[in-house]
């Protein structure tokens, strides 16, 4: 190891990020209808968002359409398996045909470390992957791991929240600013949280007072007692690109065999 990396130190980054990101996407699916309750501070609102229940396992189909400013776009479809135990996640690409069968798996352990693997059918073997930053994009999209992680986690110890106002329809507008020592790449994040959903339906990400990114949740569905966001769009304002995630085919709280989270299943 010429750069000082050790297996232990290289493990957490990408795997943990992916775990957190996918977990967050699935957590969004678990948000139940909100109580008719008012909150007096930003912290209370974000705590309420964070307190929503989540299914222990989720299987879903995810369609991700990335559109560049030029209008050129790319759509990839994938199947996701996720469990809060670990947590562990596995993604298998199903379309387009040339990447079908490619997969990505990440497993976190109780000790806080995680590992990830990638499988490319053309290479015919599973490779372990390391490296990456929280600010890295999520599979070449407008989402970063950091943004997806913070999507529904609600209250984050790294942030201080302030209730800016309450818009019509009881929508809490909460500004989050990173606390000292935070590694966030944003210096202000504004959440729009309707009280009836307790789910941010619009999130604005600022750097230096400039809106860098805008995320919106435009569709939700109620399934098995969970409010599931089905369409999430992230726009990178300056670049003019956007990514739309569409989640369908939810299977919630079903048993997922341990063998799913294995190199064998990944390469199958």
């Amino acid at each position, binding site marked *: 190891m010429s750069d000082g990396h050790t297996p232990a130190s290289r493990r957490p980054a990408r795997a943990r990020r992916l775990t957190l990101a996918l977990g967050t996407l699935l957590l969004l699916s678990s948000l139940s209808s909100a109580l008719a309750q008012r909150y007096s501070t930003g912290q209370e609102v974000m705590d309420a968002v964070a307190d929503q229940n989540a299914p222990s396992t989720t299987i879903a189909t995810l369609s991700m359409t990335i559109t560049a400013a030029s209008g050129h776009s790319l759509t990839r479809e994938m199947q996701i398996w996720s469990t809060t135990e670990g947590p562990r996640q596995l993604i298998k690409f199903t379309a387009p045909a040339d990447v079908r069968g490619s997969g990505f798996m990440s497993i976190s352990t109780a000790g806080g470390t995680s590992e990830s693997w990638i499988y490319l059918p053309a290479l015919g073997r599973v490779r372990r992957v390391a490296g990456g930053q929280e600010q890295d*994009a999520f599979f070449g999209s407008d989402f970063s791991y950091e943004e997806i992680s913070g999507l529904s986690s609600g209250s984050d110890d790294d942030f201080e929240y302030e209730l800016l106002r309450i818009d019509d329809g009881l929508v809490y507008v909460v500004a989050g600013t990173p606390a000292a020592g935070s590694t966030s790449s944003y210096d202000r994040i504004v959440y729009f949280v309707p009280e009836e959903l307790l789910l941010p339906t619009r999130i604005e990400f600022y750097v230096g007072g400039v809106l860098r990114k805008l995320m919106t949740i435009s569709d939700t569905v109620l399934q098995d007692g969970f409010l599931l966001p089905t369409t999430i769009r992230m726009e990178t304002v300056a670049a003019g690109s956007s990514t739309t995630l569409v989640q369908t085919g939810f299977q919630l709280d079903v048993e997922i065999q341990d063998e799913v989270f294995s190199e064998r299943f990944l390469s199958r």
Partner: protein
Amino acid sequence: MLRLATLTTSRPRLFIAVFAVLTALAAVGIPRVGINATVAAMYPDESAHSATQTLVEETFGAGQLLIVMLEGDVYTPAAMEALRGLTSELSKVTGVKRVTSATNAQRMEDDDGFLLITDLLPASGSITPEQVSAARAYLETARMYQGGVLVAEDGGSANVVVEVDPNGDSDRVVAAARRAVAAHWTEPSLGSAYFVGSPVVNTAMRGTLEREMPLLGTIAALLLLVMLYLNFRSLRGALLPVLTVSVGMVWAFGVLGWLGGSFTTMTSIAPVAILAVGSSFSLHLLGRYSVELAHGAQKMAAIRTAVTETGLGVLISGMAISAAMLTFTLSGMPAVRALGMLVAGGVLASLLASLLLLPAVLSLLKPPKRVSDPEAPGAIGGLLKRLGVLVDRRRNLILIVSLVLAVFAVVGVLRIEANTAVLDYFRADSPIRQDYERVERAFGGSSQVQLVVTGDLGDPEAIRAMARFQERAAELPGAGPTSSIATVIAAIHETLTGEDGLPATREALAQELLIYQLSGDVQHVSQFMTLDSSMGLIEMSIKTGSTREQRAMVERIDALASSEFTGLLEHSFAGATPLQIDIEDSLMHDFLISLSLAVVLVIIIDSLVRSLAAALVTIVVLLLTILFQYGLLGFLGVPLDLATMLLGALAIGVGDYAIHLTVRYMEQRRAGDPPETAMGRAILTSGRSILFTALTLGAGFGALIASEFVPIRTLGSLMAFTVLSVGLISLTVLPAACLVFLRQPRGSINLATNLATNVATNAATAKEAPPNV
């Protein structure tokens, strides 16, 4: 003209008030004039490369490149931390799209069984010597960074590549980059910083333009005042032409402001051109006014005679200059069109002020107590008289010598080389040129060439063709590093398989691209290829040079691309280098069109009041001057550039004051003088005006010599040379040509009647015939 003179002198206050109001209105528009000194402001409308450039910016998010080269021992923790701080600070600057340096470049390698995809160095915390060593090992061997893209191969300098939003404020970004370097690259062991790229050039051009516009105008105005004072020997004689030309300037620039126009590098010529040309109108009118007063005419009569007789020549001369300048409006370049309209507008406004405002002002002023007769015998009169005799005796010799010189000039013209490279606007010892030289010495090339390829980039054959092309292109002399999606895929393939090659199947290619997309954002993953794999970008840097060298390089690259891409990919060019070639092509077109059209227009306008033969003889003499001018360019090795290409049409228009001699000669011929007598008198009477017009114009254009822009300075030198040459040739070759080829007066019938009347009036009032001519 007489009616006009009567009107202006009978209601002077009304005319002065109207001019004052219009000038005040125009003046309000002047602060609205912006400055656009970017190279993009010179792009031709019909440039195919400009369209491709827009496509590149929109499709690949490619910005203008600002490269900061930092000298010093780069591979140390302190240097890398400084580089990281600098990179981070620049990333936050508004208008910066992306910053890449050795610290945040991506590393992808097989690390002890792990596929490691990460930044080369950690984003925060201390950087250890081990991390620096690892980064060095990677940079020196990784395919994507070979050729010293980010760190020179000897480790003695590093590049920070800043992509700047083309629509952003490049001045601000460049200033921020300089501040960031000053704040971070401070260790004593670290060396100097050098800044290159389009944003730097644009900023330097803007800064120079802002400094120069007032400076050159002031120098030109002062030189004109001196020349005018020497001519008239009175403050009034010096200030009145400046008054009329100031009106012209305010109107021209005021209208430009109201129309939302901007100053460009090209339009920096305009104020000096308007000053020089515009003042010559009043010079002629005031000269004639002085002659009339000196010969005993009353003030009002002197004004009316000046306007009626000299005014007609001034009117035609002004129209000819404006017409010549308006030929620039046919240019494909907005900056050249703006220059043509601005100068034509300013000249026409100065002409109006000379013909309407000047008589009105003169009619309100008391006539000067002492009037020196400009045509009285004196040093200049004696010189002109001797000149007349010399021309009469040596007319054939003068013409033969001119012919021989013309042949030499043709040889010089054939030696001219075109070069419109923007960097050559700056002197070789200027900081920006020094920076470019230093960067190219370290990294090979700094001029940008981009190839847009369209086709099925999901096809491994297409990617292989791109890789082959890049490999061969890199071997071309003067070529720097190249990069494309093929470079990225080759690096991924090598990391994943350990093989030096490219994926063999469509699936393998798509899946290796998936790795590339694993942690890059949309802009990152589409910087070399569109998301749908239908279009790609190959970036190249080549050594900066003249446009001739750059054109040859682009042609070689084009041939190479055609041979490699046939049947697989279509390609087109973008980038700073092909755009400069477009600018040169457009300028060459403008040069030929404007010069030939200016010649035709001046002949037509001149012949309206005189004769076609007289116009032809005059224009041939003028063309001779222009031939000398371009011949001189060839012998001196001065390239045909942005400014010198416009020189021809400008000189045709400005130099048309030579026609005053022909007019005078024709007048005397029609009055019955034999050719030799008529010419002797013409030289004596018009010679002084021609001489001082030449000196005044020469002094005005000479102010451009103070410019920091090389083409503008060359233009100033050559225009000064041209107008002085026109003056000399007007008093030598033109009289000789008239005596040989224009012995019979001819002209338009209707206008000849007016002319004959004018001549008769002139003959009756002037009483200026030298006794021995």
